[in-house]
């Protein structure tokens, strides 16, 4: 027996379905809304009525092409649709219209933060199936609202070697799709779905049997499924029992137990009998169309992250947090333009705004729901700068703005947040606070100026929180030094 343990190399590829954020479905005029009552968003086309025909949604093609360009893929001058034939109760036509051998783009890829490049094989357009609901008694119910919703399926090369890389890839892909407005990628609504391909082999040896894991519907589950598969496969090979060696098969991820189990073996694989969809002519995309779509692409997340660090001096962490959500980054950028204070904007966003999301008394869950505008943040920063507000009042103001959407100045007035500028009033509060505090006065006079901090609280309290702590401090020192 060898004393040196085998070094196992995992090989990981991902197939990711993303729902395109179009106004209507891929081949009909129905809108789609997650959570709508079953079978209310349907028509003769997406319910597969006899005689109904598909008509391609140009908006879906446009978003697909923008996705290809954002991912550096080559858009094919012509592509075609194919029928993927299989029977299931949620598939109304008995076939799915997809793209088989002529997808609309190929190539491209994503460079992960680690510098690792993950290449894309291809991306294709296809329609979603409906939903079969099996947990309502002994009957199966079918909801065809989702039937015909446009999806892009992106397939990577097997370039990843760890669950962390898979996670980083998905995070980056999601960011890019959100940035270009192609997809919301909300996994809880099924807008991003992932199948994982995993194999392991001893270093330096040929690749071994690949296992496809389906039904992995969160980034955390993707990591769990990959880690479990890698461990399971290594353990199986190391058992030395060939009957236990992994075989090419499709497995299902059980998120409750964190394990995968066999769904179907290679022998049971479907024969989808792909053939060119006769109801749809080939799609031709010319160079002018591609260039026009390219002109609509925004600055992508990686470029933005770098610019925020270089131009605004943000830390990599802050830049990462802000850029991860396009609406947040846009909010940040406008705030910076209006205030001229990038650091302050970043600090308020990362320390206060993000923290306040989801707090019940603020009642706002994300930047998309927030009524506060970038000029409100800029104005608040200016008010602090001018000494009208101190930081605590600023925090109070910020929450009020997030909650109500009212303008900064109006709220300062309404909530009485402006600092007291009246020196006489402050002096009176200070003198009141000093009464009977001879020990503190003695300490301060002896050079222990920090002793004065014990007096700040009472003075601030007396002012209703509106005194400027710095002014209070200076006033207290002045009174003590004068030996009053």
């Amino acid at each position, binding site marked *: 027996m060898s004393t040196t343990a085998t070094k196992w190399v995992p090989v990981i590829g991902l197939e990711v379905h993303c729902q395109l954020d179009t106004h209507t479905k891929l081949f009909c005029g129905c809108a789609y809304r997650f959570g709508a009552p079953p079978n209310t968003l349907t028509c003769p086309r997406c319910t597969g009525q*006899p005689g109904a*025909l598909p008509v*391609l949604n140009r908006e879906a093609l446009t978003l697909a092409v923008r996705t290809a360009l954002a991912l550096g893929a080559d858009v094919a001058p012509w592509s075609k649709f194919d029928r993927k034939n299989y029977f299931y109760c949620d598939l109304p036509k008995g076939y799915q219209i997809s793209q088989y051998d002529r997808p609309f783009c190929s190539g491209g890829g994503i460079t992960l933060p680690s510098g690792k490049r993950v290449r894309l094989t291809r991306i294709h357009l296809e329609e979603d199936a409906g939903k079969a609901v099996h947990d309502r008694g002994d009957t199966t119910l079918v909801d065809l609202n989702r039937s015909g919703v446009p999806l892009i399926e992106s397939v990577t090369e097997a370039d990843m070697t760890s669950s962390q890389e898979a996670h980083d890839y998905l995070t980056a892909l999601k960011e890019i799709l959100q940035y270009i407005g192609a997809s919301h990628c909300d996994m809880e609504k099924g807008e991003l779905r992932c199948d994982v391909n995993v194999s392991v082999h001893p270093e330096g040896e040929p690749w071994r049997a690949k296992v496809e894991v389906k039904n992995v519907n969160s980034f955390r589950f993707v990591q769990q499924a990959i880690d479990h598969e890698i461990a399971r496969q290594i353990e199986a090979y190391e058992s030395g029992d060939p009957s236990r060696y992994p075989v090419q098969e499709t497995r299902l991820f059980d998120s409750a137990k964190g394990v995968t189990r066999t769904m179907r073996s290679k022998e049971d694989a479907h024969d989808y009998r792909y*053939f060119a969809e006769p109801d749809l002519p080939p799609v031709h995309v010319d160079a002018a169309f591609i260039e026009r779509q390219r002109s609509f692409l925004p600055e992508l997340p990686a470029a933005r992250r770098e610019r925020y660090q270089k131009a605004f001096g943000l830390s990599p962490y802050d830049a990462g947090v802000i850029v991860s959500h396009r609406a947040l980054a846009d909010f940040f950028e406008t705030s910076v333009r209006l205030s001229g204070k990038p650091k302050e904007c970043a600090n308020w966003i990362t320390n206060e705004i993000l923290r306040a999301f989801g707090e019940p008394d603020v009642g706002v869950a994300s930047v998309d729901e927030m009524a506060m505008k970038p000029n409100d943040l800029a104005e608040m920063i200016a008010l602090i700068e001018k000494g009208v507000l101190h930081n605590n009042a600023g925090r109070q103001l910020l929450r009020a703005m997030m909650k109500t959407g009212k303008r900064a100045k109006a709220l300062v007035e309404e909530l009485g947040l402006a600092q007291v500028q009246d020196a006489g009033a402050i002096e009176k509060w200070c003198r009141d606070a000093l009464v009977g505090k001879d020990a503190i006065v003695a300490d301060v006079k002896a050079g222990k100026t920090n002793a004065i901090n014990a007096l700040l609280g009472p003075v601030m309290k007396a002012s209703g929180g509106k005194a400027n702590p710095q002014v209070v401090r200076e006033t207290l020192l002045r009174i003590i030094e004068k030996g009053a």
Partner: protein
Amino acid sequence: MSRYEELDATALRNAIQKGERSARQTILEAFERIDALDPALHVFLNTQRQAALARAGELDQRLAAGEKPGALFGVPVALKANMCLAGVETNCGSRILAGYRPPYTATFVQRLLDAGAIVVGMTNMDEFAMGSSSENSAFGPTRNPWDPSRSPGGSSSGSAVAVAAGMVPLALGSDTGGSVRQPAALCGIYGFKPTYGRVSRFGLIAFGSSLDQVSPFARSTRDVELAMSVISGLDENDATCFPEPALEPEATPDASSLAGLRVGVPKEYFPDVLARDVRDRCEAAIQRLRDLGAQIVETSLPHTQYAIPTYYVVATAEASSNLARYDGVRYGLRADGDGTLQGMFAATREKGFGPEVKRRILLGTYVLSAGYYDAWYGRALKVRALLRRDFEQAFEKVDVIVGPTSPTAAFRLGEKADDPVAMYLCDILTTPVSLAGIPGLSVPVGFVEDGGRKLPVGMQIVGPWKGDARVLRVARAYEMATEYAKAAPPMAALVPPKNPAATKTVSSGEGASRGART
């Protein structure tokens, strides 16, 4: 005034427009004719008597109110039972769709309605348009009005007979491999398959999507043109429908002359299986074209012999996919089977489809299967391209191509029912045109005698891609020079004794046979 069954759609519309007859009277006469003949011929799977009468009354009121009448104002039309009209049962001649009422209306049906046509009912057909005799209908065959022991051809059997027997002047069928041209030939009327893409397929229940084309039956070429002017033209609901506006007749200084026209006669269209008397009728018709000034040119379509196998691979492959939606989940028949989902699919399809449909689904599934695709479906696509090229090359030297529509006149019901291959050979002269996607019109060119019965013969006039108007012009000139299209079948024997009460609204209530010429 001419009797209802003697008038073509154009004449009926003109008479209604001029106030010589009402739409309501016209519909009553149509139903009188249907009531008299349908028991013997089995043309309709359902009729829309009440709806048609109500609509006719409404049209009469609109005309009286000064509305400008549409191109088919008041004209009774019949639809093949694979065409969608919202709320009206359309079952494709199949048990699996029995009772199915589509929730929407086909584009071409809506265009008929917008032009003022009145739908009288849905006509019998071979199940899912698969067949050439009507014997594959789950609801029993339709009979040929020229000899009720014979088939009217298929699959658009009911629509063909509805027009031939004078029930309606105009009916729509669908032609995938000859399903309009062949029954038109066997029933002695016009049947026109336009260029693929000329008429929207939205609302036509699919058989072979790359071949299916909505196609009119009529008793005059002007009615074919009229129907085409209404139903053709761009439809955003069908991505394969091409962008040209509705078809207009070809302008010509003298409609009765074919001077300068080059007519190609391919030697492959006169094969050994062609009946002697059918050949004679077609040769006489070609001579007539020569008499009209046409130049007759022998031409060749060398890949014709591969059309039947190619067609039966392409059409069945598409059908195997198109018919997958009949699974019992959403509409039509559902059989529970063993209670599992797969069991329900299997039981529903086992019970719902007839033997020919099953045969074609199996064939189509096979030719698309992994490992067989290249040898069958992939190869068929290549041969299809060769067939298309045959025509392109031939049309470099000729303006139209002619040949028999069907190798025989009407055959007896039951004669070929047990021999699928013999039945498939009915399509030998129509499938090449379908595979090439080009226009073909079957024109009545006379009769043959068989068993003491006169049986019609049809000749197919084929045009180049989008050459629909040219095909119709040639047919028009031939029509002007001959009387064959005006002959009506001898149907008096089919009509049961009349109930005088039922005929009180009809001006001359005797005799059901169209015209006195027979």
